[in-house]
């Protein structure tokens, strides 16, 4: 399984990770090697085997709907790169 430059760039776009040309080349090679190693799974017969998403056998965990105090906005916003009053400031989504 060889991953082309175009495929690497496509995945980078899906993941919204900017990459330099050098990184694209390196990832193309490294990810190809890793994916080749995954081929070993093809040897395993998984007919009628259900998937495991997590190992604890709990289902439908619910909580009581209780009103509780939230953290104060100024504490939450203390880590915000850009803020405006009590709001996170974001760049325009539609331009």
């Amino acid at each position, binding site marked *: 399984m060889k991953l082309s430059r175009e495929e690497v760039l496509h*995945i980078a776009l899906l993941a919204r990770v900017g990459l330099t040309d050098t990184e694209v080349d390196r*990832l193309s090679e490294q990810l190809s*090697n*890793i994916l080749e190693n995954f081929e070993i799974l093809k040897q395993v017969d998984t007919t009628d085997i259900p998937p495991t998403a997590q190992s604890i056998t*709990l289902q439908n965990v619910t909580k009581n709907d209780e009103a509780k105090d939230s953290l104060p906005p100024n504490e939450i916003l203390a880590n915000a790169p850009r803020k405006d009053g009590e709001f996170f400031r974001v760049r325009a989504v539609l331009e």
Partner: protein
Amino acid sequence: MTTNHNQLTIHEAHRLLKAKELSSVELTNAYLERIRRVEPEVHSMVTITDELALKQARKADELIAAGSNISPLTGIPALIKDNICTKGIRTTCSSKMLENFVPPYDATVIEKLNACGIVVVGKANMDEFAMGSSTENSALFTTHNPWDLSRVPGGSSGGSAAAVAIGEAVYALGSDTGGSIRQPAGFCSVTGMKPTYGRVSRYGLVAFASSLDQIGPLTQNAADCALVLNAIAGYDNRDSTSAPHPTPDYTECLATDLKGLRIGVPREYFVEGMQAEVATAIRTAINELGELGAGVDWEVSLPHTPHALAVYYIIAPSEASANLARYDGVKYGFSYKDAENMWDAMQKTRQYGFGAEVKRRIMLGTYALSAGYYDAYYLKAQKVRTIIRREFDQAFEKFDALITPTSPTVPFKIGEKVDDPLQMYLSDVCTLPINIAGLPAISIPAGFADGLPVGMQIIGKPFSEETLLKIAHAYQQATAWHKMRPNL
């Protein structure tokens, strides 16, 4: 004050504090002094919280003076891995992305430890976002193994393990997604446990791979491990995968003989390419368990073990790619300022905020989850995950515990594997199947090969932490490997 206090176990420190032979302030000062002396060589700490530590120590001394009924952890210095949220203390995940992030809340484990009146001396270095096996992926600096400063301490909880080994803290917390507590514990010759998935709350642990992550203790011996586990285990309704099972007193299981215990040795864990001296050390340790009364079956087989690496490196990066989508430069963390528009800002924030390994795993996970590849990679891996779990279930019908090496080699040289991700991934080959199956496992010191630590891994069925502690404690009563400390 002598530096001897840096060799104290929790049990010993607690006894001295309670008998008023030592104050928490004296104890804490000894550790802070030790930190100042060895930190320039070991580099295990991202943040040193000396003011906070002394404040907490004074408070502990007041409690002791007032004759209060103190916890075994009261007034005892601890180090916290830097992916566990600590209110008001920078929590970086050793990433540029969170270099200046100060959590507005405490993780559940921190709330629980604070309720015990502990002393926090700082936050431990790690591989960025817990992705790695050596701390070389830390965006801040690499931690050095105190047994040989030219070698890695293991990872990702490398700072936690190195600090306990060299006496910068009496114990530490780490997190383990594929071996990140056990492998560094093995590499630094300390005791490290990954509890059963769900045993310890993940609330406030910065998420890497949510179905695999678990917080656990790194201590100097199994008896101390039991004390820390007592403090941090238990149900938490803020973590929807928290287990409702009752929490026993883990100190009650500590025994000195292992009569009637059935131990299996899965042959697939003595892998090709494993260092011969490591295999020899582990076989010797297993024989010791036999002498303590355990029945040992050397011919156990878990045939799908060789598939675990691929399963792990599909599932963990897939979950990581989703969890790390939150780092968009808007709510907290690094944010690229000079962007042209929203998408450019997001891409550049992630380009410059994440290091090479984190980007590699996000890319790998995004690929495995992307249209056309989901069934072939992610779904297939989840199905093989079921097979691996079932194999363990079957083995535990016959055995109380399984024993393997923690790692196939002794600690490797800094720089040796940084350019070859697959080789780095292989250093977790003995530990990651346990996370896939959600089992508890502990790594304990089991000797040395070429003068470097060898760790033995004891694996149990879900919620059998008591069995693991019993075996580990019995072994540590009969051997002295865990008492050996590096000279620095």
